[in-house]
């Protein structure tokens, strides 16, 4: 194992350790914080694939996060009320099975990513940022004005969705589910980045002219990465809805897109465990500084500035002594 892999494994182990120590100490609130960090990290792992490795600054990943959340919320609320989700073209019932909700959330997020990506990836640079932002804001305003599922007030579901053999209401068991999914996403991400596809994706970022000259069309590569990215962030959204048993348009807003971006940049752009380090630091700061002042985000802004100026490799880059990826 090289140093970068040890840091990645160490950060993941630290997250698990925090949850286990909190369990032993009887601090369920801390477990919930660790769960939240893991879910945010998962959303960031999705974004990191396009932002870190593909060089595509998506400012619209809240769209996928929120869609994942709404899919979970809508299916769960229908399972509760017993009314079918849809009657045409076929009858579709709600469900409170996580194993049914996750693939649905990922599929819907992936389809929306395909549509948004197909249009936005025709632009680049600041236009790409603006187009992704615009699509996410469209979904945000749609959610606000859609009264069937709570509109502006959001949608609550009172019972956490179920997972076979586990009590999802037990904080440590729900954390375990989230941590396993995060570990799988990190592993998948590590494989993708090193694969042929990852080679093409990274080349399309660093030297697009070269990619074309060797016969690789960047558009298809980027669109595929965008869809995978949206699916991972969508899964995180479904878990986040389950954590809070509540989903609201805020999950779709540009603030959320910005936060996911902050996790990635704070932790280290294009570093495997960057989003984990970033989300962990974010939750820690929110918890420590949020008690001191409600303006804690001003301090976060300052910290972000320092990171971007002096440590472009983020937290993971610093741990790695400024060495390469």
């Amino acid at each position, binding site marked *: 194992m090289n140093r970068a892999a040890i840091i990645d494994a160490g950060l993941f182990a630290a997250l698990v350790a925090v949850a286990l120590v909190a369990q032993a100490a009887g601090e369920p609130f801390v477990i919930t914080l660790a769960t939240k960090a893991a879910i945010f990290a998962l959303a960031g792992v999705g974004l990191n694939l396009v932002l870190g490795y593909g060089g595509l600054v998506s400012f619209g990943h809240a769209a996928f996060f929120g869609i994942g959340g709404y899919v979970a919320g809508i299916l769960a609320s229908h399972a509760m009320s017993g009314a079918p989700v849809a009657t045409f073209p076929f009858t579709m019932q709600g469900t409170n099975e996580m194993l049914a909700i996750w693939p649905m959330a990922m599929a819907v997020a992936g389809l929306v990513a395909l549509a948004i990506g197909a249009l936005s990836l025709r632009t680049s640079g600041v236009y790409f940022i603006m187009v992704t932002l615009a699509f996410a804001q469209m979904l945000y305003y749609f959610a606000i004005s859609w009264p069937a599922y709570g509109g502006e007030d959001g949608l609550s579901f009172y019972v956490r969705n179920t997972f076979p053999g586990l009590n999802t209401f037990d904080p440590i068991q729900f954390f375990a589910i989230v941590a396993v999914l995060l570990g799988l996403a990190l592993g998948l991400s590590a*494989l993708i980045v090193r694969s042929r*596809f990852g080679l093409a994706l*990274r080349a399309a970022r*660093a030297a697009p002219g*070269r990619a074309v*000259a*060797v016969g*690789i069309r960047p558009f298809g590569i980027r669109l595929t990465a965008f869809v995978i990215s949206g699916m991972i962030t969508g899964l995180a959204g479904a878990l986040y809805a389950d954590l809070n048993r509540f989903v609201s348009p805020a999950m779709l807003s540009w603030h959320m897109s910005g936060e996911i971006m902050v996790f990635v940049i704070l932790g280290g752009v294009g570093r495997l465990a960057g989003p984990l380090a970033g989300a962990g630091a974010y939750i820690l700061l929110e918890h420590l500084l949020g008690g001191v002042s409600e303006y804690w985000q001003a301090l976060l802004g300052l910290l972000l500035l320092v990171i971007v100026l002096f440590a472009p490799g983020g937290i993971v880059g610093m741990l790695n002594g400024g060495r390469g990826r």
Partner: protein
Amino acid sequence: MNGPILEVEGLQKSFGALKATDEVTLDLRPGEIHALIGPNGAGKSTLIKLITGEIAADAGRIRFEGQAIDTVDAAGRARLGLARSFQVSQLVPDFTALENVMLAVQGASGESFRFLRPALADPALTEPAAFHLAHAGLSGRERVAAAALSHGERRRLEIAMALAMRPRAFLLDEPMAGMGADGARDLTALLSDLRTEAPILLVEHDMDAVFALADRVSVLVYGRVIATGSVAEIRADPEVRRSYLGEEA
């Protein structure tokens, strides 16, 4: 096949009022090095970009191995076997030398949608890549990041990547750019051997290299081909001497 590999006919490209490529007709035959020379701003790089498909021509036709490729995009032309090198090295800086060449092998194979197997554990990529690196004289430098290579090594890496495309024709845009005398001499020997792999359309400023290597030379001035012929014919051509070679010849 004995006809030309690459035929360019009546190619035109204007940028506003500037005719960068003006009715250019030339061809590239099997086994030859066809050098394209001309003063700065003559439209040599534009012509290369028209042939690779990076920019679209206003008029004219390009045939590659007898087949019209005007509607094929740049990536498609590369996969057909039209391999180009860049005047200013276009390498992936944080990839190693080996990974850069692997990328070219992968591009030529057309199989980029594989997600799980590490590329570095794929002998279908690593073995040809190592072979082409060695061919270009970069043995022992496989694990060095492209950004850490010397200028001369980067020029060689450009060649290795073109070789890895298993090309039917090379388009080499100033492969000697910025090389010292020794480096240029070594590279000249390498290029001379390359023509047995595939013919080369060579854009070059180094006249010693051009006269040593070229089987035929075309002279481009203000986007027009003013002469095509053997090295001896071009050296003797009065118009070429006046408009380009000057006292140098």
